């Protein structure tokens, strides 16, 4: 409940220990985290003195459906809603369902639902491509949030605190597992300069060392700031040679300086990143079939670039990036892409057109390459949308029961978990909060959410604060 407990102070010794490690990430934690080896004694300053369990996944791809997809129009069919379409809607005060205007009426789903695949999972016609991989989806229909507001929910989903000021899920994963590839950041944010509600805090490392914050990768234009060398290779090499000599001499004259020596190393890493990151982002070497599968060949810029980001996400998994978040583009003047208080049909269909095919392609492609097992995919908005409306083509914010799905990463496919009531208002069975979701994701990565801690503000901070339980029923 209280976001300010964490304080802003860290005991100097603990903090410094980490900062000394920060230039190259936490490769050593990968061993402890991934293979359950009890190497704690070999890990200086490790916060993990107890063994973690075997990991089912090594990577997470978080497909953030920014703004809130309507659950009753996608994965949670409500025949009763159709039946009572247009009738006055009422709900209890404890149901966190927003009404931005009066005279609420139930609103039926504009898209038909069908059972899909072997599993018979219900997916609406809004998402035909995702429907085609239904047997790989683990759909949670009983998500519960805290406040029906974008900023608060977005921060809650990303950081486990509705006010933020805490590390992002991706930062915790990066911190807990370290990187598989020292030349790359372990947490990448594939976006297009669109800052979601809650701001850059969503992706910040907060009190964790800065190396664990997200590195944004732009869809259009230069993928990463400052990644393109300003100088031709030979000239840059001449400068780097000069710097190495000059700085080494300085470090020596100071009788050795950890800070300066690691800064020197950073220059070599940075130099390699200049070629590695662009080549990682360059999909020109992918086969025409793959490009078509994702829809990189599509004409519309929004479609094309979202597909490109999804394809890059797969490449990053292959390159060893731990946590990859892909955000949706904002196509129109709104404060979040999926936030359809009005124009529900038009804009939900537009967002679906952009994201549906690439998301399905990503799942299919990872599976074909044998990477889906070790990659946990999370498809989630920060909220659902109201089953009721004051009009006929819009839904407002809703967090007392909504849907997300996961895939791969050692979770069961073709299943749904949890239920909402007959109108899709409240989760009534197997309620899952964001902390439970976080605990489960960490669990699949081999990290115990109660043991993944960082000493800060006088206490051992956790992603899940004092909450969270692993959803055992969905584990494969």
């Amino acid at each position: 409940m209280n976001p300010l407990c964490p304080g802003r102070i860290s005991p100097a010794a603990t903090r410094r220990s980490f900062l000394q490690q920060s230039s190259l990430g936490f490769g050593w934690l990968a061993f402890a985290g991934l293979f359950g080896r009890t190497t704690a004694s070999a890990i200086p300053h490790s916060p993990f003195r107890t063994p973690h369990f075997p990991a089912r996944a090594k990577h997470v791809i978080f497909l953030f459906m920014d703004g809130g997809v309507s659950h009753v129009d996608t994965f949670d069919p409500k025949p009763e809603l159709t039946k009572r379409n247009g009738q006055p809607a009422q709900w209890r005060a404890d149901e966190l369902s927003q009404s931005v205007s009066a005279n609420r009426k139930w609103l039926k789903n504009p898209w038909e639902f069908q059972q899909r695949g072997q599993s018979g999972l219900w997916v609406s016609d809004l998402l035909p491509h995702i429907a085609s991989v239904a047997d790989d989806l683990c759909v949670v229909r009983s998500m519960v949030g805290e406040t029906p507001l974008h900023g608060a929910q977005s921060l809650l989903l990303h950081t486990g605190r509705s006010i933020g000021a805490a590390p992002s899920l991706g930062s915790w994963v990066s911190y807990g597992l370290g990187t598989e590839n020292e030349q790359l950041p372990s947490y990448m944010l594939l976006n297009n300069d669109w800052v979601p509600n809650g701001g850059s805090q969503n992706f910040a490392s907060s009190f964790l060392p800065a190396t664990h914050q997200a590195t944004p990768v732009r869809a259009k234009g230069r993928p990463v700031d400052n990644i393109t060398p300003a100088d031709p290779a030979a000239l840059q090499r001449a400068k780097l040679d000069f710097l190495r000599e000059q700085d080494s001499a300085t470090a020596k004259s100071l009788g050795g300086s950890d800070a300066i020596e690691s800064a020197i190393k950073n220059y070599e890493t940075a130099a390699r990143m200049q070629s590695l990151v662009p080549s990682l982002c360059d999909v020109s070497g992918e086969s025409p079939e793959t490009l078509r599968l994702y829809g990189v060949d599509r004409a519309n810029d929004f479609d094309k670039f979202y597909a490109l980001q999804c394809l890059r996400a797969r490449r990053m998994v292959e390159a060893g990036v731990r946590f990859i978040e892909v955000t949706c583009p904002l196509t129109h003047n709104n404060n979040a892409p999926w936030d359809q208080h009005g124009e529900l049909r038009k804009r939900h269909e537009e967002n679906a057109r952009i994201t549906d095919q690439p998301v399905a392609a990503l799942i299919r492609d990872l599976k074909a390459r044998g990477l889906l097992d070790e990659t946990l995919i999370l498809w989630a908005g920060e909220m659902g949308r109201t089953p009721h409306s004051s009009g006929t083509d819009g839904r407002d914010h809703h967090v007392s029961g909504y849907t997300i799905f996961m895939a791969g990463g050692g979770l069961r496919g073709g299943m749904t978990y949890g239920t909402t009531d007959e109108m899709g208002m409240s989760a009534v069975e197997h309620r899952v909060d964001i902390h439970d979701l976080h605990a489960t994701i960490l669990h699949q990565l081999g990290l115990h959410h109660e043991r993944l801690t960082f000493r800060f503000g006088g206490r051992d901070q956790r992603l899940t604060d004092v909450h969270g339980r692993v959803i055992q029923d969905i584990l494969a």
Partner: protein
Amino acid sequence: MKPTAPVLLLLGVLSLARLSAAPAEGLSEETFRKRTEWWSLQPVRQPAPPAVKQAAWCRTELDRFVLAGLETSKLRPAPEADPRALARRLSFVLTGLPPRAEDVEAFVREVSLFHSPTFSPAPARAGEKLGKQESESAAYDRLVDSLLASPHFGERWARHWMDVVHYTDTHGYEWDAPAKHAWRYRDYLVRAFNADVPFKQLLLEQLAGDLLPPRVDSRTGLSETLLGPMAMRMGERRHGDNAFADGVTQEAMANIIDTVSKGFLGTTVACAQCHDHKLDAISQRDYYALAGTFMSTRWGARSADAVDPNLEVLAELRRHKQALRAELAKLWLNSREPLLAKLTALPADEKSSPAFPDSLASLWRQTLLRSTNVVTLATAWPKLREEFQREREKRVAANQTNLTLLADFTRAGMECGWRWDGLGMKHGLVRDGEPVVADEGEAALAQLLPAGRWSHACSQRLAGAVRSPLFAPETAMTFSVGYAAGRHAARAFIVDQAFHSERLAFLNQPQPAWLTLTAGNFDKLAGGNDTSRARRVYLEFATKSLNNYFPPRTGYGGLKESDVADERSWFGLTRVYKHAVGKAPQDELARFALLFVSEAAPESKEQLAARFADTLLAAVTRWAEDRCDSEDVRLLNEALVAKWLPNEATNSTLAPLVAAYRTTEKRLQPDRTIGSADDWNEARDERLSVRGAYTEFADVVPRGNIRLLGGPATRAVLDSSGRLELARSIASDANPLTARVFVNRVWLHLFGEGLVRTPDDFGHLGEKPVHPELLDYLAARFVAEGWSLKKLVRLLVTSATWRQASTPSEAARVADAENRLWHHYPQQRLDAESIRDALLAVSGRLDPALGGDPIDPYRTAQDAAKRLFSGPLDGLGRRSLYLKMTLMEPPKFLALFNQPIPKLTTGKRDVTNVPDQALALLNDPFVLAMAKHWGDRVLKDGATTPEARAKMMFASALGRPPRDEELSRLVKLAGRSAELHGLAPGALMACAPVWQDVAHALFNVKEFIYVH
């Protein structure tokens, strides 16, 4: 005046006590007593400096505390740093800017005059040594004094304090709404630190400046005291209010409590929102005592002009207006003939109006309609007269029955608890008939005003606000406000001290009218979902610059960015009446009375026109003689709207007067407003929230101070928020924490680490100081010397401890790796702002100007919906302090080098070392632009050899001349660059790209971003 108290109920404590559930006991006496035995809660002592063996090493008394510690551990201090290192260190630490190479060398020359070549840190012959030391010290002291006197000192120390209050120019969350003119607070800090205003005073002002006698800056005429409270308003602030979503304001209060308790007191209180502190002497009751204080504060925008900047201009405007009024009166009185011609030429209305006509023009056209065809004027007129008399009597009677006067703005002092603010309102109390000169366009006059208070009486560029007392929370009350308004003046109901009320509506009503509103009963307005029936609610009218939430989120109320850019805005009020629903004030029609005085009906259209003209001209006559009433004003305005009276700015007699007025009006200085605080004596205590939940309450906690600082204020001050009392107890010589915490911050900024290494937590979860006596010595001395920052800084930087070199001896490194004993000066990476400022300064691009509007940081993509605009790559050469701190997306270059995200108070910044920083210094367009700027500039430096130029550039960048091998390394790089650019030998000196490469390389040298 009727009493308004029964209507405008000030919320009492008692009514809330009924709501109490379980009492929260707080800490037991025993626990509290035990916990207050903690070191930082003991009174500050004045310890005598300890005896030391190597007394000669000491330059100040503080050195004896440090040396005693070293001697106990059998360690020796590091030798004194060389003069160049000291000069660079001093410059960065005191001003945040690199020294100029020539200043460093001048200092070195001065020092070397006294410098023995065989100087050794170990004192050989004490007497001789001391003589030298004194002379060296004179040179050193002069350098220190000149840096303390530099205007950049204030910038540097303002920025340090801005970390504590987590300074922002915007409020983040979803739309990044602006923090109302926060930059005036930033400039206030710069001025205060430069003027060495006692820090105690600054603390008082930041907590309760609005309650203090004004401290006026003589140069700007600003009330510094009103600028201070912006300190409490920084960080994330959501839009909406508690009735919309419970917790909106409470979150802001938690942020204020966190900032004030950690920042000012080094104590963590915010965690007590949900539970008693686990270790410190802080209970949950303490949290709600503070919450009661801050929730009893209004967070409006204030006009900070203490000295009226416009008196001369206003006098001139009034003269122009007087002349214009006289000319217009002449013109209007002479316009009977054209008026008659105009009237007779007007067509009749086509449809008959069901209600009695509401303007002179409408009455004219309706009269014509009724007397056309078969009906003659002689028949129609008596009927109309009868209707008029009936209507008039009915309406007068209705108004007398229905209306209760709540506030009267037509006479000073009759506002009945409503308050106004702003220079526009200050000069806006007018009599009936005050003309408003149109500030543009073809009309000379915009309108005539009825008596009241009008922000635009002189100019739409002066500001105004009117705020009501609190309304009764539960019962709805309907009332009507006589008003007119335009250019996005707004009214808003402020619920539970909301910062960004979305019960905001822009007003567009050119002619005076009644605005009928219902206050209270917000439960209904919130859709029946509000959990509380005890909201604090008041009404605010404000022009743009005094509207706390202007500009609101993008597009709100149809607002366009061009409207935001236009500084004009206006409104005014006449009277406020309370009445039942549907019983709003009615137009009493008195202005038409003269038309109907005579029983005789006009016999022709010409006679009718004459009667209308005479009625109008009678009003003009009274206006010309300054004895008109509000009905005359309305009549004249109706005539102006109908263009029945000449009002063209192009009229040959009016034109020069209108032009003169408009020219003079442009010289007015608009109000300098800022988001501040206000105390309305309407305080109430807060209920303790069970586990911090916003909807589950225990008992009421008396507002006031936390218990360990004396507890709630005495009953005598309970009619106010208690904020001033809180401020006084914090900014107190006797407070054990305040001076200790601040002195520790200053030490941290000068030494890279604090004496207490957890600067925001002096409690049980913080770290105890290794040198508690030194901390007390400094705190006591700081207080004794009048809380002077400059004296404290001077003491610290002139100490032998601070002047040590930054290389520890091997023994010290082993014995005390963390340098707890201060056996050397720790090497430090420059903070983000200093890195960017050094790039500007060394390249010659720095604009040293102080203060002003923030500059948008350079962005690779803009987001107009959040007003995240991109600014110039080099920020116009202005210091980093002046880049706009948009909370949603702070300046990226600064964030990369650990400028903290300004949501929470930050006492000690992170220092990370990541490849992104190397990438930025290698490839960031800003760094490259600075290298280019410098590369271009050095071509004109007069150097004739690469060595000479490289030497100068090296010294500019690093504050010291290069050693031989360093010089040859740099020259070699220049040669290699020339080769790669395909230059013929000999062309190198005139080739900018080569020197840009050299500049770029020097920016990347680690020494550039470190101080030793």
